[in-house]
């Protein structure tokens, strides 16, 4: 994709969208929110899905796995796809696929069909997150980006918290089918608003018209590697890891594909993932930290409710409520840290974040017992979440700072390292 990795012309810097950037921010964040919500909303509904479709509970967990696997495959190549067909068109196509498949999921007459539609939904949803970030990045001037991404960050972190509560409430009061139908008005609205508000910046068109040679080899290794990784992580515990032939096969497939992918992309002139960016210490460290942040955020998100439900007899709804305090804290912190990032060096903010997180978790390790009250459990969650609030925005700032300073020519490849680089590739340098 060297044809597309041009030194970007200066006109893009002055380009601004015609409508208010905040209207665009609201639109794309809404789409991203629904996407993230859908990763977690079905969790609590699984027993009902299994019952309703006459399947076993074990089989029904594939409802989550199929979505996540499809998501994981599409996410890293979304930047590349957007370059191929145009960002706005790709974003709208993703939304359209998501809408239709949500409807079909809700109507699904059998489990295999539901799983198929869920996978299609995952394909549609995979493009929404990185594209939303890329659009935000081009829509706002540098001074406002911190706040814009704070708004987006709230949706990305809040959605997995709200999902299980919302899903539980809908399935308890109505039917599991409604967890799919309920997204329809929101995605349709997002589709309409995207159509009328969002526009591709002029420099994107030019990049698009450059000749693109497709790296089919890299793409298939990526899809196979990431897909198997996601499935094995989801099913490993249940099937006892190396005790199962299925999981062992997946582990080998994932390892071989991903290692081969890195070697392949390293020597390729036009990679779909620019692995050479990892030569930058800051970029590599930021990716490691982003990985660890996801590790902490999602594992503690599982730990606290599970502790309360299995050992202390809380209901799912009550356990979800314990998490709400943490959600509120993030809501408050995100904009503040977004603002701080444009004043204080990212590394000091990051250090503060990890310190808070470490203290919070040590405190949990020493104080959690079977006599914790609802209020205390809620404070424990707050202690865990405060650190994460400090990390989200600054880590990205640190990761791409080197590329900004050097005015490096960044390949328009989206990298597995996330959206950082999906966003980096879209950055006006």
């Amino acid at each position, binding site marked *: 994709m060297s044809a597309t990795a041009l030194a970007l012309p200066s006109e893009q810097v002055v380009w601004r969208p015609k409508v208010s950037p905040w209207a665009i921010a609201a639109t794309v964040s809404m789409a*991203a929110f629904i996407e993230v919500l859908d990763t977690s909303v079905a969790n609590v509904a699984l027993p009902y899905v299994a019952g309703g479709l006459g399947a076993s509970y074990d089989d029904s967990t594939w409802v989550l796995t199929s979505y996540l696997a499809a*998501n994981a495959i599409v996410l890293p190549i979304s930047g590349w796809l957007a370059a191929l067909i145009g960002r706005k068109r790709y974003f709208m196509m993703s939304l359209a696929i998501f809408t239709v498949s949500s409807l079909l999921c809700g109507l699904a007459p059998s489990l295999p069909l539901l799983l198929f539609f869920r996978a299609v939904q995952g394909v549609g949803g995979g493009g929404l*997150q*990185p594209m939303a970030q890329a659009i935000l990045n081009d829509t706002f*001037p*540098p001074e406002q*980006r*911190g706040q814009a991404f*704070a708004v987006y960050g709230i949706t990305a972190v809040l959605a997995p918290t709200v999902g299980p509560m919302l899903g539980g409430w809908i399935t308890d009061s109505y039917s599991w089918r409604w967890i799919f139908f309920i997204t329809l008005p929101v995605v349709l609205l997002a589709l309409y608003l995207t159509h009328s508000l969002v526009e591709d910046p002029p420099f994107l068109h030019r990049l698009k018209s450059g000749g693109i040679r497709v790296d089919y080899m890299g793409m298939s290794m990526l899809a196979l590697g990431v897909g198997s*990784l996601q499935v094995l*992580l*989801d099913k*490993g*515990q249940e099937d006892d890891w190396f005790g199962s032939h299925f999981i062992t096969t997946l582990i080998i497939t994932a390892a071989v594909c991903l290692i081969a992918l890195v070697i392949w992309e390293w020597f390729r002139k036009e990679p779909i993932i620019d692995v050479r960016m990892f030569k930058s210490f*800051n970029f590599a460290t*930021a*990716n490691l*930290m*982003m*990985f660890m*942040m*996801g590790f902490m*955020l*999602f*594992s503690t998100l*599982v*730990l606290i409710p*599970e502790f309360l439900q*299995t*050992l202390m007899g809380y209901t799912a709804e009550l356990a979800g409520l314990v998490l709400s305090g943490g959600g509120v804290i993030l809501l408050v912190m995100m904009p503040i840290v977004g603002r701080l990032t*444009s*004043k204080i*060096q*990212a*590394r000091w903010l*990051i*250090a503060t974040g*990890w310190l808070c*997180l*470490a203290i919070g*978790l*040590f405190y*949990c*390790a*020493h104080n*959690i*017992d079977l006599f914790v009250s609802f209020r205390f459990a809620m404070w424990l969650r707050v202690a865990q979440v405060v*650190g994460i609030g400090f990390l*989200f925005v600054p*880590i*990205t*700032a640190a990761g791409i*700072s*080197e590329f*900004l*300073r050097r005015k490096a020519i960044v390949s328009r490849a989206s990298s597995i390292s*996330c*959206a*950082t680089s*999906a966003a980096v590739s879209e950055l006006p340098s």
Partner: protein
Amino acid sequence: MRNIGGSIGTSVVTTMLVRRAQYHQQILVGHITPDTPAYQSALHALSSKIAHSGLRAADARDQTIARFYQLVHQQSGALSYMDIFWVLAALCSIMFVLAFFLKKNDPGAGGQVAAG
């Protein structure tokens, strides 16, 4: 990266929870064999209390043992949660140290981009 971290994190944590709980349960069970005097007296005390509420002695004894099992199960579960929080905290401390090795960035450069 955040998503993969999340998947791996959840997977590691749930596996660790089960393994550590088994480990702690094994150790705890080692302390409540029929020949430990403390266990014997606790067993006796609780079963006589349950028998008092109207159950036959054999049933009361069964129920007492069931309750002890539940207790062991709960305690080993709680201990495994403590272990995991401790490990997570240690990992965060490593990241804290690593943060100081990051190079300086220019806060005004407009590089604030959230990563997903």
